[in-house]
C-alpha cells in the first residue's frame, strides 16, 4: 500500500517536473510582436545637443505640479537658485549629462523613459498602474492605482522609473511624453518644444527612424552607425543618435528580444490560462481523498480488530 503510493507520488512529481521542463525549453523559440511605427516618440541627437538643459527646466516647469516634481538643490547652493539634480530621481523625469573621455572626445546625453514597444514595467505591474496606449504607444503611470511595490524599477532594463524615497506619500516618477500636460495642450513634448538646436525631434516612430537614417547617410563620419532604440529590448519609441558608443553614455547594451517576452512566455506556459492550477488541484484532491478513505477504512478495521480481541 505504502509502496504503491510512493510510486504514485513520484510519478506525479516527475510528470509535473517534466511539464515544467518542457515549458521552459519551449520558450526558446520566439516570434516577436509587430512593431508599432505609428507610435509617437522622440529622436535625441547627441551631436546636436549643446547641454543647455532647457529641456530639463521645461519638463519640470510643465510637469511639476501634475507629476509631483520638486526642485533639487545642489550642496553649495544654500539659496536654492538652481535646480541641480544629479540623476533621474523622484523629482526629475529627464536629465542631461556630459560624458567626457578627453578634451576632444565628449558627448551630452539625455535620459528619460524610452517608451518601449514591449515595456517591462507594464508587463510586471500587478495592478495595471503602468499602461501602454495602443495607438500613441505612450507608457503612462497612474498613481491612483499604484501600490508602490517598485517591481517596475526592478524590471526596467534602463533603470528609468524612480521612486520618491523621502516622501510619506510617495509615487513612481517617469516621463509620460507630457501626455496630460504639454502634449494635450500643444501637441508636442515640453523638452522637444524648447530645444533651441533641434537636438530633440518629436514625431511618429516611422518619421523619426527615416530622419535618423537620413542623418546617418548624409554625415557618415559624424555619427556612430547605429540608431539606439531601433531594436534594443524589442524596440523603443525614444531613439538616439550619437558619436560615441552608447554603453559609454550610460545606455545599456541590450538584446533585440524584449525581456518581457521571455518572462511572460514562461509564466503563461506554466499556467496555461489557469488550466494547469485547476488540473493540479483536482489531481491532488483525488489522491488525498483516496488516501483519507483508505486510512479511515484501515483505522475502522483496526478498531474492529481491537474490539474483537478485547472480547
Amino acid at each position: 500500500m505504502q509502496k504503491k503510493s510512493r510510486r504514485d507520488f513520484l510519478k506525479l512529481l516527475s510528470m509535473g517536473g517534466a511539464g515544467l521542463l518542457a515549458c521552459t525549453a519551449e520558450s526558446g523559440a520566439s516570434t516577436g510582436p509587430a512593431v508599432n511605427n505609428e507610435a509617437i516618440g522622440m529622436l535625441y541627437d547627441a551631436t546636436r545637443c549643446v547641454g543647455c538643459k532647457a529641456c530639463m527646466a521645461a519638463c519640470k516647469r510643465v510637469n511639476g505640479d501634475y507629476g509631483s516634481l520638486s526642485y533639487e538643490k545642489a550642496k553649495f547652493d544654500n539659496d536654492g537658485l538652481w535646480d541641480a539634480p544629479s540623476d533621474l530621481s523622484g523629482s526629475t523625469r529627464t536629465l542631461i549629462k556630459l560624458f567626457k573621455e578627453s578634451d576632444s572626445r565628449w558627448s551630452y546625453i539625455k535620459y528619460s523613459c524610452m517608451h518601449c514597444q514591449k515595456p517591462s514595467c507594464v508587463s510586471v505591474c500587478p495592478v495595471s498602474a503602468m499602461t501602454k496606449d495602443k495607438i500613441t504607444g505612450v507608457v503612462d503611470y497612474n498613481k491612483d492605482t499604484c501600490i508602490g511595490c517598485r517591481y517596475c524599477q526592478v524590471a526596467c532594463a534602463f533603470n528609468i522609473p524612480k521612486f520618491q524615497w523621502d516622501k510619506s506619500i510617495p509615487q513612481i516618477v517617469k516621463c509620460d511624453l507630457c501626455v496630460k500636460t504639454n502634449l494635450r495642450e500643444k501637441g508636442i513634448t515640453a523638452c522637444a518644444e524648447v530645444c533651441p538646436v533641434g537636438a530633440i525631434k518629436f514625431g511618429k516612430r516611422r518619421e523619426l527612424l527615416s530622419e535618423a537614417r537620413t542623418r546617418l547617410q548624409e554625415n557618415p563620419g559624424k555619427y556612430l552607425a547605429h540608431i539606439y532604440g531601433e531594436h534594443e529590448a524589442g524596440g523603443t519609441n525614444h531613439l538616439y543618435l550619437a558619436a560615441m558608443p552608447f554603453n559609454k553614455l550610460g545606455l545599456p547594451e541590450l538584446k533585440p528580444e524584449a525581456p518581457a517576452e521571455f518572462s511572460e512566455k514562461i509564466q503563461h506556459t506554466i499556467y496555461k490560462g489557469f488550466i494547469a492550477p485547476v488540473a493540479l488541484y483536482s489531481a491532488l484532491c483525488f489522491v488525498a481523498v483516496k488516501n483519507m478513505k483508505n486510512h479511515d477504512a484501515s483505522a475502522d478495521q483496526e478498531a474492529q480488530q481491537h474490539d474483537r480481541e478485547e472480547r
Partner: protein
Amino acid sequence: MGHEHEYQKLEGKIFTKAFFVLLFIVAVGFFFVGVRFVKGIGAVSNMSDGYPWGIWITYDVATGTAIACGGYAVAILVYIRNRMQYHPLIRSAILTSMFGYGLAGFSVMVDLGRPWNSYNFFIPSKWQANSAMFEVALCVMTYSTVLIIEFLPAILTAIENTRGDRLRAVRDWLHPKIAPNADALLNKLELAKAGAAWLKPRLNKVLIFFIVLGITLPTMHQSSLGSLLLIASTKLHPLWHTGFLPLLFLINCVFIGYAIAILESIISCYAFDRPFEIDELSGLAALIPWVTVIWLSVVIGDLTYRGQLLAAISLDFYSGFFLLEFFLVGIGSAILFSRKNRRSPRWLFVSAAMIVLGGALYRFNVYLIGFNPGKGWRYFPSFAEVMITVGIVALEILAYKIFVKLFPVLPRIGLHSQANSEA
C-alpha cells in the same frame, strides 16, 4: 483528520522572561515601522532606485515564505504521499506557516509605497495576468486564509474544552468598573463552546479540500517567486538568471520546508524540555537528500547547458556566494544519507540548519547578491531596516510561544512509542 488525541497544549506560564525580551525587540521594530510611515521609506532603509527591493522583500517575503513552507512540505507527505505517521507534526508546521505568511504579508504592507491602493488586487479590471507579482499576491493572500482555516480545528478544540480559567483571570484582573458581568460572560462562553462543538465536525468533513488547496497554492506562488526575477535578465547575474528559476524555487521551498520542520521540532523540544520526536524526524530527514539531489542536478545541468560552469567555479564574488549556497545544501544533504546521522538530534540539527541556510542563501543570491542594476549602485541594509525585520521575526516567535500554550498544537508526548507498539 479528527486526530485530537495526537496533539496537546503545552502547560506553562505565558508571561516568561523570554516573552518580555521578545516583546522589547518587537517594540523597537514597530517604532521604526512608525518612522517609516511618517517620514517615508528612505528615512529607515538604504534601498535606492537601483536596489528597489531590500531585505524586507528578500528576507521577509522571498525567504520567509520558504521557511514557512513546513506546512506545505509536511502536508504533501501526509496527504499526498499517504504517510499518516507524520500527522502529529502537521499542526505545529501549519502554525509556523500561518505566522510566516501572515508576517510576510505584514512586511509587504510596510514595504509597499502606496499600500492604501492594495484594494486594486480585488478589482478585476486592474488584474494583470502577465505579472508574476499579481499571481504571488493573490496566491499568498488566499493561502494565508487557507492556513487559518487549516488551523481552526486546534482553536475550536481549545474553545470546546476550555474551562474558562484564563478568561476569568483576565476578568478578575480588570478594574471592577469595566469588567463584564460574570454570569453573562459564562453564558457567552457556553454559547461559544456550543458553537465550536457544532462547527468542528462540519469543518472536519470539508477540511481535506482546504488542505489540498493549501498544497496547490504554494506550488503556484513559490514557483512564481522565482518567476519574479525572470524579467531582470540584464540585472541578475547569469549564474542565477535562467528559465528554470520557477522550478528551482519550487524544489528549493520543499527541501527548506522539510529541513525547517526538523529544526523547529528539535528547537521546540529543546526549549520546552520535551523528548525529541526522533522517529518522525529521521523519516523526514531521509526524504531531504532526494529532493536536494534533484535541485542540485537541475542547477548543474542548467549551468552546463548555458555554458556558465566556468563562471561558477571562477572564485570571484558571485562564484563565491554560488559555491557557498551549493555546498551548504550539498554537504547538509550528504550528512543525511547516513542512517546513523539521521537518528542523532545533533546531526539532524546541523544538517537541517545547513540546508535551510543554503536554501535561504540561494534566495538571497537571486534577489540581492546576484542582482546588479548597473554601475554606481550599492546596497547594504540599514540598522532600522534590519530592526524592522528582526522585530517581525520576534513577533512570529512570540506568537508561536503563546499559541502552543493556548491551543493543542504540539505532538502528544509518548505518542510515537504508542503508535509503534500498535503497528
